[in-house]
């Protein structure tokens, strides 16, 4: 039986298919996007095998190369011929080309090299080849020759590799001590000294700097200086120990280098590693990425400060935007006379949501940072001038700017929630002798709290992914310290901070070492998505809890 096209159209079937198609496309896009960044980003941390081979391009000198294959692509033979590689004409039109990470930037000048696998000879995967991750100059690929303590070559009965690893572990321990002293203890003393300086300056400005006050300050300062001297001495000792060990290594093409073991983050022999070893190594690397500071212009190490900065900023933004948005919505919906003016305000609020975010950045810079910040500086922090305290981009201004950006969302959602509270419940409260304010506070606002959370969820989703305005009002590519630490006043609202979104931009497009940074762009993007998802899911969980509590009451 043939159903006519018209009947089929009338049955509504095409719309079902259209809808199903749209949903399917959406899901495929989301999953595909996540899968792409996950695969590209997470693959970076896997310890790939190191290939070693002779590479002889016709018409050029033969050389030995070693490294890990990062990616491959097809290029036309014509392009290669243009590049001066002699390829006979009868060979195929296209050639495979591979990007190999050869490391040893200090020796070769570049970490990566394009090669044509067709010209590789005597390929081998030597178990002895090692990868040394260094604090500077990227990875080193080569063979370990000897380990030295000062000028003395270590020759004990243990295998060379084992004593090398031992000394790396020892250096790592010292490095941690040094980090602790430099970052925390000396940081604390510096912060205290700075506070003393500001105190002195303040007294001076108020012309209260008497001799006794000065003597007191001098005394405190001397104490701190004394402490600093001790730390400096200890630091000197540590550095001496740290730099005592060396190792000699040979690159695959036979060049010998002597490097300090202090410069090594970790060394491993991927070709000799079993699968569990590799998995453990992989876990290590991922953890480092999530929990450590960045190294080498953000192309190595972790992105913890960026995660921390993002979360911190979003939390501060939420804390600022919620009360403002809720109060504004309550006023608009409950107290304001519903007339032309309120309608205009509503239109203005809705339009605010459509303003491009960079405009908020410009506004934040001009109004918050330059105007409000410098006014606050003049009033409250005159001792620090001409150095600005709040008169410069920082965490506080970034949070406030984003709060402003997300304010319309919270207002609209809260108003929506308030308008849905049944009139009967308000009347019930009023009939018991409650005033309007008491009714609002005890009944209406708790019942509208799920709607407020919905607004906040939307606000968080928007704010966490926003980058453009932040570049103007407080985000930097590398912040020297976290905005939350052990130094008074603990939460440093005036400090600049790192942000995952900006980090992606910086690593991807501002990095001196683009090839090395590319996988990190994917990994950071994945992490940004995960962070936003976690922030959102926790807000959704809170909202669902509230909804459960205040549900029913059929309108």
């Amino acid at each position, binding site marked *: 039986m043939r159903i006519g096209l018209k009947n089929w159209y009338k049955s509504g079937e095409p719309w079902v298919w259209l809808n199903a198609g749209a949903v399917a496309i959406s899901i495929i896009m989301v999953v595909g996007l996540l899968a792409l960044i996950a695969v590209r980003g997470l693959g970076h941390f896997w310890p790939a095998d190191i290939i070693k081979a002779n590479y002889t391009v016709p018409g050029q000198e033969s050389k030995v190369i070693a490294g890990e294959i990062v990616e491959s692509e097809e290029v036309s033979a014509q392009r290669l011929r243009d590049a001066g590689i002699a390829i006979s004409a009868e060979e195929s039109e296209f050639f495979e080309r591979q990007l190999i990470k050869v490391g040893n930037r200090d020796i070769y000048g570049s970490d990566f090299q394009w090669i044509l696998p067709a010209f590789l000879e005597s390929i081998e995967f030597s178990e002895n080849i090692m990868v040394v991750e260094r604090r500077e100059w990227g990875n080193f690929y080569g063979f370990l020759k000897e380990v030295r303590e000062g000028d003395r070559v270590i020759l004990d009965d243990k295998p060379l590799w084992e004593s090398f690893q031992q000394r790396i572990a020892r250096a790592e321990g010292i490095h941690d001590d040094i980090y602790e002293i430099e970052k925390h203890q000396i940081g604390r003393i510096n912060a205290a000294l700075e506070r003393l300086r500001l105190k002195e300056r303040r007294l001076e400005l108020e012309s209260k700097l008497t001799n006794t006050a000065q003597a007191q300050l001098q005394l405190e300062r001397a104490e701190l200086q004394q402490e600093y001297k001790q730390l400096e001495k200890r630091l000197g000792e540590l550095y001496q120990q740290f730099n005592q060990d060396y190792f000699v290594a040979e690159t695959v093409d036979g060049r010998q280098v002597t490097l300090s073991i202090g410069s090594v983050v970790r060394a491993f022999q991927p070709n000799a590693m079993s699968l569990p070893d590799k998995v453990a190594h992989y876990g290590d690397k991922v953890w480092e990425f999530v929990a450590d500071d960045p190294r080498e212009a953000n192309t190595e190490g972790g992105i913890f400060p960026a995660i921390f900065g993002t979360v911190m900023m979003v939390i501060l933004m939420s804390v600022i935007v919620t009360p403002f948005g809720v109060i504004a919505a309550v006023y608009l919906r409950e107290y304001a006379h519903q007339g032309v003016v309120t309608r205009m305000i509503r239109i203005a609020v809705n339009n605010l949501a459509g303003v491009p975010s960079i405009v908020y950045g410009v506004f934040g810079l001009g109004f918050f940072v330059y105007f409000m910040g410098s006014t606050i500086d003049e009033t409250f922090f005159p001792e620090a001038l001409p150095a600005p305290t709040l008169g410069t981009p920082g965490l506080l201004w970034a949070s406030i700017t984003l709060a402003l950006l997300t304010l319309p969302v919270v207002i609209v959602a809260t108003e929506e929630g308030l308008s849905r509270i049944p009139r*009967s419940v308000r009347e019930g409260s009023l009939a018991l002798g409650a005033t309007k304010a008491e009714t609002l506070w005890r009944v209406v606002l708790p019942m509208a709290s799920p709607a407020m959370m919905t607004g906040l969820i939307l606000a968080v989703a928007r704010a966490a992914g926003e980058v453009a305005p932040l570049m103007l009002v407080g985000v930097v590519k590398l912040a020297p310290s976290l905005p939350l630490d052990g130094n008074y006043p603990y939460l440093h609202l005036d400090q600049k901070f790192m942000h995952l979104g900006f980090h992606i931009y910086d690593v991807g497009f501002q990095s001196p070492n683009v090839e090395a940074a590319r996988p990190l762009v994917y990994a950071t993007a994945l992490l940004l998505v995960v962070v936003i998802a976690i922030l959102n899911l926790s807000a959704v969980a809170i909202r669902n809890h509230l909804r459960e509590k205040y549900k029913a009451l059929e309108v």
Partner: protein
Amino acid sequence: MSEAMVELSTDQQLADKKAHAIDMQSLGRVKQDLDIESETTCLDISGLDLFYDDKQALYDISMNIPQKRVTSFIGPSGCGKSTLLRTLNRMNDLVDGCRVSGKILLDDQDIYAKGVNVADLRRRVGMVFQKPNPFPKSVYENVAYGLRIQGINKKRILDEVVEWALKGAALWDEVKDRLHESALGMSGGQQQRLVIARTIAVEPEVLLLDEPASALDPISTLKIEELINDLKSKYTIVIVTHNMQQAARVSDYTAFMYMGKLVEFGDTDSLFTNPKEKQTEDYITGRYG
């Protein structure tokens, strides 16, 4: 939506009862000898006009609502009986463009005078609405709400009052084991009695009931009616109802309203058996559509 359905069912009832006056004996009502002149006045309404913007909804209403009696307002939909009820605790203040002139005296005090504390008035004149409207809180907190508003937070006092009020609303035995569960999990009838308990917890002088049983099933309705009977020894009760049998069952005095005017007000027995006005007779015998 629900309003329309109530109207519809009332219309059907009216159609069924066409040409049947209310048979007072069959309702199990004992004839009372009441006289409005000898009652103590609780609320003295005189010359009350009410406007929604330019539209007048109440015309020159004057009546004395007697103390510790049940007074019912009956009349067809839109006659202004709910509006009149809501003027008694100034609930109409919440409606934009609502204007009132005339006087309502409670204890010789005009409740519409300047400087009257409306919240205080509403505490003295409690109100129960057509649809149960418990707060999304526990049973206990619902009843304690009015006290907490007054700043009473001592647990001992609250416990006592909650128990007393729930017993007063004949709900204690049903909920005493789940005082701290959400009130929204209760049945409609229980919710309505909870709302009554919540209202009497603040010890008002007057209870205004705005069609308290119209959203409930017959058994719950019966319970509410029994409750009204129990409560009338302590409170002045004013009830608005669509249901004439209900008015005949529970009230001592009845006011019949039509088109915003008070047509007839008198003791329930006389009004239903021997109405003075033609309009009243037509209505109670079901001659109004």
